[in-house]
């Protein structure tokens, strides 16, 4: 073995380390060779370990096995991702050349989903690769969603049918709890939110103007946000669910703030006084009633399970009830004047932002502080564009907007550091 000999010669010339990098062939054979020397008692276990360590090789057989397994799992992930994307694109392209039998197409989609889950399960639970396995299981949940939509394509199911998102949600939410995966829970929350929004939109699309449909759909997210937020204490309470509570309050805050931010746009309410307001569809009203009941139940349960250490929870609950009440009232479009809504929702968003920041500082939750600062920045910028357009010449407008963004960034960084220092000190 030429590489090995030349390598030895160089080493014997008194160099501390080889002058050329050892080849992969050399490194591949060294562990077996060292093991042979050890068995022949030419070297002891300590020397064997030192030799392997010198070349950055694992010193123990099990570790070497794991490393090989890691390479295999990286290849498995790459393979799974490539095959998954390939299958999705193949079926989405729906090409005539691949006009395979419907049954085979369906079997291919379902088989691929099951394959991903099995690979993920084995890596996560049977082999010591929990992160890689978890990533593949997560990929499986995304693929399952794609499978639902692709099967919808095979049978020409209505393109915007919200039931497809419902199937996706129902299919993956149990997996979040079985695998205790915050990533899968977050995906489930996103899918549920999108599905409910799409369902509401289909009930409103033919009878409501775009603006009015938005006014009657967006409060859904405020209610969902409250529901997600108050499910967190329930998850925190139980040992087995504790790892899952992180995404809930953050998803809840984002949903509430996005809802209020959108409802603060004047454009939705500008033409209200010109139009007749149609009745709320009964189905949508039922959906809101169920969500309200769930949100109130979540608030009550959160207060109950946290009764020994309530902290700021009662104040949070009171704020949430006000939000749910106002969101519900918005459905009935109580004011004809756009200004009333603009003032109401911007004031509410500011209150939620500062309330969240205060809770973040009081409880040392950095995520709350970061979200509130981010939404404050978005609010300032959104309102500048919403209210400022048309009041300045174009050049003045862009210069002013740029200066405002820079100033906001500077102030946010300044306050962010100060707040985080306070959190750290506390």
């Amino acid at each position, binding site marked *: 073995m030429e590489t090995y000999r030349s390598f030895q010669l160089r080493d014997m010339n008194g160099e501390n380390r080889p002058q050329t990098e050892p080849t992969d062939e050399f490194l591949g054979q060294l562990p077996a060779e060292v093991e042979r020397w050890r068995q022949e008692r030419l070297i002891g276990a300590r020397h064997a370990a030192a030799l392997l360590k010198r070349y950055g090789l694992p010193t123990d057989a099990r570790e070497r096995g794991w490393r090989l397994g890691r390479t295999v799992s990286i290849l498995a992930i790459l393979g799974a991702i490539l095959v998954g994307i390939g299958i999705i694109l193949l079926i989405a392209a729906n090409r005539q050349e691949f006009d395979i039998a419907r049954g085979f197409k369906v079997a291919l989609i379902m088989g691929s989903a099951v394959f991903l889950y099995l690979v993920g399960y084995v890596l996560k639970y049977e082999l010591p690769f929990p992160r890689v396995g978890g990533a593949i299981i997560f990929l499986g949940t995304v693929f399952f969603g794609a499978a639902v939509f692709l099967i919808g*394509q095979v049978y020409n199911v209505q393109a915007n049918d919200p039931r497809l998102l419902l199937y996706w949600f129902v299919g993956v939410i149990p997996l979040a709890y079985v695998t205790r995966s915050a990533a899968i829970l977050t995906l489930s929350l996103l899918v549920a939110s999108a599905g409910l929004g799409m369902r509401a939109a289909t009930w409103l699309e033919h*009878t409501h103007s775009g603006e009015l449909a938005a006014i009657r759909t967006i409060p859904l997210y405020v209610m969902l946000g409250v529901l997600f937020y108050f499910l967190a204490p329930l998850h925190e309470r139980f040992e087995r669910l504790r790892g899952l509570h992180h995404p809930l309050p953050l998803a809840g805050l984002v949903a509430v703030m996005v809802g209020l931010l959108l409802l603060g746009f004047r454009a939705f309410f500008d033409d209200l006084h010109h139009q007749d307001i149609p009745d709320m569809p009964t189905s949508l009203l039922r959906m809101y009633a169920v969500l309200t009941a769930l949100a109130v139940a979540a608030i009550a349960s959160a207060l109950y399970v946290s009764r020994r250490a309530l902290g700021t929870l009662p104040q949070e609950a009171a704020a949430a009830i006000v939000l749910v009440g106002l969101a519900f009232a918005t459905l009935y479009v109580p004011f004809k004047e756009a200004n009333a809504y603009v003032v109401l929702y911007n004031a509410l968003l500011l209150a939620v932002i500062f309330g969240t920041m205060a809770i973040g500082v009081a409880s040392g939750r950095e995520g709350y502080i970061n979200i509130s600062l981010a939404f404050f920045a978005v609010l300032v910028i959104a309102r500048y564009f919403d209210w400022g357009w048309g009041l300045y010449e174009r050049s003045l407008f862009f210069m002013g907007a740029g200066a405002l963004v820079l100033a906001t960034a500077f102030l946010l960084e300044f306050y962010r550091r100060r707040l985080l220092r306070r959190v750290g000190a506390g």
Partner: protein
Amino acid sequence: MTGKTVLRLAFVAVLVLQIGLLLAIIVPKERTLATGEKIVLQTVPVDPRDLFRGDYVNLRYTISTLEGYLGFAAGDRVYVGLAQQGDIWDAVSASHSRPDGLYIKGRVSRAWRTGLDVEYGIESYFVPEGTGHIIERARDVKVRVAVDSLGNAVIKALLVDGQPFRPDMAAKTEVPSGPPTPAATTPATN
């Protein structure tokens, strides 16, 4: 039972649930395709669009607009009686309850003063990438649909100028002066 066994069972249960959900989409459609009566509906395709499922064509049928039917509200279930007129099937009744004979089940999307807009769940047809324009430009587009005994409908094929749609039809399809307008259907009975 050990924790690992419970985990394994729970994981398998979720897999079974997911397969069950996919089958919940597949089985009713296959049942309708296998047992449903094959009828042909006149349609006018509109707006090919791109989604991540690929291209699809929005379809609007002559039975999508029903004039003269009152007493419905948006979101109501509607049962539309069908009768063959030439090679096309058309609406002859619309009611809240199942009529005798062949009927198709729909949902009122809009109720206006003199009639209804109805959706039957067969308003999307997925086509190979980049071929939606063939359907949009065709002179005459019909849809062969399977309708089962409960009024559920599934698209079996799209007929473009009398021929089952194929992506290689592009060369044969001339651009016409304009697609036909769907005629509103007048009821025979209510």
